[in-house]
C-alpha cells in the first residue's frame, strides 16, 4: 500500500446542498482525512456491483472541517459519473476517495499578496475554497473574484458570495442572460473586464484561473497581455471526462 494521501479511504456522504438546478455540493465524512490546501483535488473511485470501476477528480470546495470535506459536482448530461453523484448517491452511502492531490494550483493563507481569482462556470469550486480558507484563517490578503456564468441561475454559492466580506471584491459577468439591474449586455469576459475587476499588474497579485480549456487559455493570454508575470498566473483547465 502506498502511504499517506495516495491511499484510498472510504468516505460517506454526510450532507448535500443543491447549488444550482444542475450542481450539488457533497459533504463527505472521511475518517482520518489528513487536511488539504485550498485548490487541491480529490479522486473519487466508483465501483459497480459487477466490479467495473472508474475514477474522477473533483476540486475541493472548502477547507477541511475536521474529517469533513466538500466537493461540488456539476451534472454533465449523458455523463457516466456526475448524474450518479448528483441524483443517486445518497446520505450514508460510501465512496472511495484519495487525496488531497495537486500542489501547484494552491493558495496558502499565510501569503499576504493580493489575489486575483478568475472563474469560468464550475471553475469557481477551487477558487471558492480559497475564499473560504482566507475567511477561516482570518487572512487580510486582498482578494478580487471575477466569475463568468451563463445566467444568474448558474451562480454557485450565490448567497455566500453576495454577503459583504472585508477585502473581498466579487464581480460576476453573465454570458447569456443577466439580471435586470446588471449594467451592460451579456458578454464573455474580455480584456476590459479583467482590467477593471482585477489588480494592476504592478501589484504583482497571485492569479488563479480555473474553467473550461478555452476560457482559461483566453484569460491567461489577457493577463499576460496586461503585464502580469506568467509565473504568477496559475491555471487549471477542465472538461467533461470519461467518454
Amino acid at each position: 500500500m502506498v502511504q499517506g494521501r495516495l491511499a484510498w479511504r472510504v468516505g460517506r456522504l454526510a450532507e448535500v446542498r443543491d447549488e444550482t438546478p444542475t450542481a450539488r455540493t457533497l459533504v463527505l465524512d472521511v475518517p482520518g482525512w489528513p487536511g488539504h490546501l485550498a485548490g487541491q483535488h480529490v479522486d473519487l473511485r466508483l465501483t459497480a456491483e459487477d466490479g467495473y470501476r472508474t475514477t474522477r477528480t473533483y476540486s475541493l470546495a472548502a477547507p477541511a472541517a475536521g474529517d469533513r470535506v466538500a466537493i461540488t459536482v456539476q451534472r454533465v448530461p449523458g455523463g457516466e459519473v456526475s448524474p450518479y453523484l448528483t441524483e443517486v448517491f445518497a446520505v450514508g452511502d460510501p465512496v472511495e476517495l484519495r487525496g488531497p492531490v495537486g500542489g501547484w494550483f494552491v493558495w496558502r493563507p499565510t501569503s499576504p499578496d493580493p489575489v486575483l481569482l478568475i472563474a469560468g462556470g464550475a471553475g469557481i469550486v477551487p477558487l471558492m475554497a480559497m475564499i473560504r480558507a482566507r475567511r477561516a484563517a482570518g487572512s487580510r490578503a486582498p482578494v478580487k473574484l471575477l466569475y463568468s456564468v451563463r445566467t444568474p441561475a448558474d451562480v454557485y454559492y450565490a448567497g455566500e458570495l453576495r454577503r459583504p466580506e472585508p477585502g473581498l471584491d466579487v464581480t460576476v459577468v453573465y454570458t447569456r442572460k443577466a439580471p435586470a439591474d446588471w449594467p451592460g449586455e451579456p458578454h464573455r469576459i474580455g480584456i476590459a473586464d479583467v482590467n477593471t475587476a482585477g489588480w494592476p499588474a504592478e501589484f504583482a497579485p497571485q492569479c488563479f484561473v480555473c474553467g473550461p480549456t478555452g476560457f482559461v487559455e483566453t484569460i491567461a493570454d489577457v493577463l499576460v497581455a496586461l503585464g502580469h508575470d506568467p509565473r504568477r498566473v496559475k491555471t487549471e483547465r477542465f472538461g467533461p471526462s470519461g467518454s
Partner: protein
Amino acid sequence: MGIVTPGFRGRARTADEKLPPGQYLVEDFPVLSAGPTPRVRTENWRFTVTTETGRTHEWSWADLLALPSETPTVDIHCVTRWSKLGTSWRGMSLDTLLADVDTAADYVLAECHGGYTTNLPLEDLLDGQAWIAYEFEGEELAPEHGGPARLLVPHLYFWKSAKWIEGLRLTLDEDLGFWEAAGYHTYGDPWREQRYQGD
C-alpha cells in the same frame, strides 16, 4: 479495499473496440529510439526513486528480482500509429516499488540510460497501471526494446514506457521530458489521440 458504490452501474459496456483512433495493427515489434541502443549490464543495473525532498530509494538487479513479479498481458500503442494487441510481459508493479516511498509529488520524470526522459503524472503509475518490465513474451527483454528493463505504462502512448529505465524522479511540478519538450503531448492518451501539444 474495493467497496461497491451503491446504485452505481457505470456506462453501458459493450464489446470493446481495441484499437484507438488513428492506429493500425502490427504483428512485429517496431523499434523507435532517440539515439543509439545502450547496452546495460545487469550487474551494473540500478533503479532509483528520488523523492521531492531528495530521499533516494535504490534497487539492484538482484533486489528487483527478489520482489514479487506480475505477468501483465496488455495492448500497446505507439504515437507513430502502430498498435500491438495482447503483448505479454513480466515485471514488478510500480505499486510494489513505490509502496514505502512517502511523497507529496504529483509528477514523475522517468530517467533513462542515454539521457532520455519522459514525464508522467504519478497517479498514472499506481493502481496496477505500470510496471518495470524485464521479460517480453517469455524471453528476457532485448536491448533494442529497452532491456534489461523498461517502464511499461500501456494506457499511454508507448514513448512514455521509457526504455533502459534508470530511475524515477518525483516532483511537485511537472518537468517535460525529451519528446514532450520537443512538442509531443504532455500526457499522451491514445484514446484521445493526444499526440502533440495542443491535441
